[in-house]
């Protein structure tokens, strides 16, 4: 069975390998020092692969030892993780949706929608309250960022109303 450390180790090796691939493609130029732009990234990449390998081996060894001692602890290690991932992915999708909406819908509307959808997604029950929180919250954030701090948030649809 895959332990967390095993997965972590393999993931590190994978990230390190991808990073190294790009690190070796960095351009060299006459303005370079002896290390060059790729010097340290290569060191980091190899270190990551090395440490990932150590972690993987650690995981395998400790699992062997655990099997000898016949513990059943890890059985439950991944129970319910799939469902958890799914729920987290839902929130992530809301965030990504916001990124795409904000430039077209404008800040005020998008942030109200974001508040509404997120609160509902996270299990807010009272529909009337959700709606009022979304509207008031959006107005509060808009006043804070756009009016008080003068941040140039996307105005989108409301551009014609100069909001």
């Amino acid at each position, binding site marked *: 069975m895959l332990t967390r450390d095993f997965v972590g180790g393999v993931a590190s090796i994978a990230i390190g390998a991808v990073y190294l691939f790009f690190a070796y493609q960095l*351009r*060299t*130029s*006459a*303005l370079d020092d002896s290390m060059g732009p790729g010097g340290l990234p290569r060191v980091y990449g190899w270190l990551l692969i090395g440490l990932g390998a150590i972690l993987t081996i650690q995981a395998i060894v400790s699992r062997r030892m655990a099997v000898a001692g016949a513990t059943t602890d890890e059985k439950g290690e991944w129970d319910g993780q799939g469902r958890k991932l799914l729920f987290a992915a839902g929130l992530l999708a809301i965030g990504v949706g916001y990124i795409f909406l904000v430039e077209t819908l404008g800040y005020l509307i998008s942030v109200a929608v974001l508040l509404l959808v997120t609160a509902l997604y996270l299990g807010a029950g009272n529909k009337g309250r959700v709606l009022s929180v979304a509207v008031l919250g959006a107005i509060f954030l808009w006043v804070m960022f756009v009016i008080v701090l003068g941040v140039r948030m996307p105005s989108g649809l409301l551009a014609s109303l100069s909001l």
Partner: protein
Amino acid sequence: MHKLYFVSAAAAAVLAGGLAVAQAQEYPVDTVTLVTHSSPGGGSDVFLRELSRYLSPYLGANVIVENISGGSGAKAMAQLAQAPADGSIFYATTPTFIYTSLLSEPEYKYTDLEPLVNFFIDPEVIYTSAKSEFKTLEDVIQYARDGRGQWGAANPASLERQALEQLKAASGVNAAVVTHEGGGDMMINVLNGTLQIGVGEVQEIQSQIEAGELRLLATFSDQRLDAFPDLPTVKESGYDVVVRKFRGLAGPKGLPDDVVAAWEAATQKVLADPKYKEAYEGANLRAEFMPHVDYVTFIETFGTETADFLKKTGVIE
């Protein structure tokens, strides 16, 4: 307390300016936005804000400043290139916009903009610690010839770096050019003797020069500076390197002639304004007005030369 005076005098000038707007000739739009990629308080930002205080009456329009940071100017260039060419929006140009265009290949480059006019050339000078043994540029070059020089440039892939690499080539010495994260970092390394020389704008080191902690060795400008008439140029010292760190404006492509004409007239007038003159000369900026036609050629040449340098050294393809 005379500083207070200065501010109230400036405020009075703005008020007087407000009155003058009514009489000035009609500029095509009411409000002109000057965009900079530098964050508030940065070099270009201070330049624009100072300029906007004096420019309005001469131009006949309100002048406001906007900071569009991000991507070292890439974002500002993109915005400008897509803006209407009606004279309502301009971008403060410094060599940075050319370096960014060349180094990061953004969607919109400096070639997608039309240079308008130039205002200033910031003199770049070579300086050393007052405690060091170097009295002239030749001493420094000789030191590098005998052993190994260590010279400082404020930023990687910057005009200063390019100037020092050219100086190295012209003098045939092998010095290490150490890049930093800004002029301040480098100044500390010059003051503590880690570097023999640094290159920077007079403005940045003014206070140290007055306090006698730094000594100027040469200027990269084409002529001697009014503020330091005894300071030789690098060219006079026998190395043919001239650096022109320009400060001007550029707009979207296809600027109408009346807009260009209005700016050419207003720029010359504002540069001659005694109060503004006092302010910019105090900040060691050298007025160097370039009309539209010259500025377009200037930027083109500058861009080609920089691209050649970056290609020759292998930084870009």
